[in-house]
């Protein structure tokens, strides 16, 4: 009774644990589905014809060489691309079957349900407490704010390190702690999906390992999509992997991203169907 509004998270977490183990690919429902997704910046087509399904309670990794549009695709999933004025989306992105770019859909609401963690840790220049409480406050989430903050920080494995200094600035934390604070901030608005855009690229190996461990915890409660440059990371943490590459666009000098292969991580890294994927994961290209 006491944490009524937090139950959805707890509930889902329980569901995964009650099963006696995490989901495996092919078992869960589809959370996000892209169908023939193309993104344009002005006249330039940055990615084309992406179709893939993201399943619940899995970690889905997007890998590929730089400029292949993986971040662009990721930012379509919670309509962050709306903030780039010249960006335009074609095709369909659906979330539990609802077209995210459909009429009347509020991108603000979309972003609350599909949260995002960015490449560089970007805490607000405010206290740790305010960093976490901002989201729930504006979303009108009811409940004891202290409790929400504590639970979010606990889930982000940061509580023990910061519980005595919640009033200190979020900027005073180390890089790895800042990124976990950003994860806590994301969790606090009770999303369903967490998008991570190269969350460890600015961190040292130890901080990276902590975030990776954390992701394994988080996937009991959320579905995670992660963009990473680091193939070892994708191999370590993800259940499903999508390999993107860039092909020379019709217009010439600029390159358009395409999806080469999407399968279980194990398959992608051990026995890919496409030659391009194999070349990339074995380090012969990229």
């Amino acid at each position, binding site marked *: 009774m006491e944490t009524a509004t937090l139950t959805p998270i707890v509930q889902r977490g329980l569901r995964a644990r009650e099963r006696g183990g995490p989901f495996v690919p092919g078992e869960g429902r589809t959370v996000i589905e892209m169908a023939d997704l193309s993104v344009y910046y002005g006249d330039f087509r940055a990615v084309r014809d992406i179709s893939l399904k993201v399943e619940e309670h899995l970690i889905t990794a997007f890998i590929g060489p730089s400029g292949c549009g993986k971040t662009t695709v990721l930012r379509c999933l*919670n309509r*962050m691309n709306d*903030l780039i*004025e010249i960006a335009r989306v074609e095709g369909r992105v659906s979330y539990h079957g609802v077209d995210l770019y459909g009429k009347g859909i509020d991108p*603000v*609401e*979309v*972003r*609350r*349900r599909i*949260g*995002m*963690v*960015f490449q*560089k840790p*970007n*805490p*607000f*220049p405010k206290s740790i407490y305010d960093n976490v409480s*901002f*989201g729930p406050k*504006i*979303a009108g989430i009811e409940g004891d704010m202290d409790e929400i903050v504590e639970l979010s920080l606990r889930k982000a494995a940061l509580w023990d390190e910061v519980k005595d200094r919640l009033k200190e600035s979020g900027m005073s934390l180390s890089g790895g702690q800042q990124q976990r604070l*950003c994860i806590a*901030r*994301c969790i*606090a*608005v009770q999303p369903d999906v967490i998008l991570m855009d190269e969350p460890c690229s600015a961190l040292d190996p130890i901080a990276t390992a902590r975030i990776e461990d954390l992701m394994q915890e988080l996937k009991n409660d959320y579905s995670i999509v992660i963009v990473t440059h680091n193939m070892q990371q994708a191999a370590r943490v993800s259940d499903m992997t999508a390999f993107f590459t860039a092909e020379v666009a019709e217009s010439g000098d600029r390159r358009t991203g395409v999806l080469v292969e999407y399968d279980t991580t194990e398959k992608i890294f051990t026995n890919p169907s496409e030659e391009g994927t194999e070349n990339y994961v074995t380090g012969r290209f990229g």
Partner: protein
Amino acid sequence: MAISPSTQDVVLARLKGRRVDLKGVLFEALLLLALLLSLSILITLMADVLRGGLGVLTERGFGFLTAGLATFSADTAGVKQGIVGSMLTLVFVVLLAFPLGIGAAVYLEEYAPDTTFTRFINVNIRNLAGVPSIVYGLLGLALFVEVFRPLTGGTTAISGGLTLAVLVLPIVVITAAEALRAVPDSIREAGFGVGATRWEVVRSHVLPSAAPGILTGTVLSISRALGETAPLLLVGAITGYIATGGQSLVEQMRSSFTTLPTVVYSYARLPSQDFREVTSAAIIVLLAVILLVNAIAIVLRNRYERKW
């Protein structure tokens, strides 16, 4: 392999270069001269004014600040109306130019799509900032004194204040926009990422981060408004005489007015040596106020200069 001493000497001589770079030294000296000359002008100006006006100020003290306009006897001339008038006109700057200017900057930096119309507004504001202040005086004369006479009462503190508010508006917009632009996008993304609306991001994160810069800009625009004379002459400040005998604020606003720099101007036009001293004293008061305001701006900027 050992290097023979002779080689060492040759290399050393080479590395020491030719004789002193005379042209280079001369060049630097010239640059320094330009700088020192500019500074010496400032010092001479200050000294000139202080020499002329300090006597009056020490002799009459606060009496000078509380004495009214007097163009016949230097002994009783003061700057009271000027101070009151400057305060009255600043009310309009603070209440109109600040919110409108910051609002416009927020629109242009945070909301505006990159359209022809937006670009037009941007260019327009930069051009407005370059319009000579006296032209704003003409605007005030035509618009506030004539068209809106029923509201402003003609050549009153209201017209003067409105004119100044319009005059500093582009400065407020430009400095505020600059401060907003300095806020890194990652802050905005973080806000949007947790499902905040544009306004929620701006109010809770962008504006607080930009506040020191915006504040500096507004303070500087106050100092600009405090020093403006020409446009106020056109909306009638020079003839102005603020009723300072206990009238209500509205009555003061709707009566003729003068400001501190226009008081300086009225005294500067009087030929006698006595008034020369009174003018200097009035300038000291004006400069003291403006330097104080500028100092606040500089301190604010240095204190909050943020590195991202």
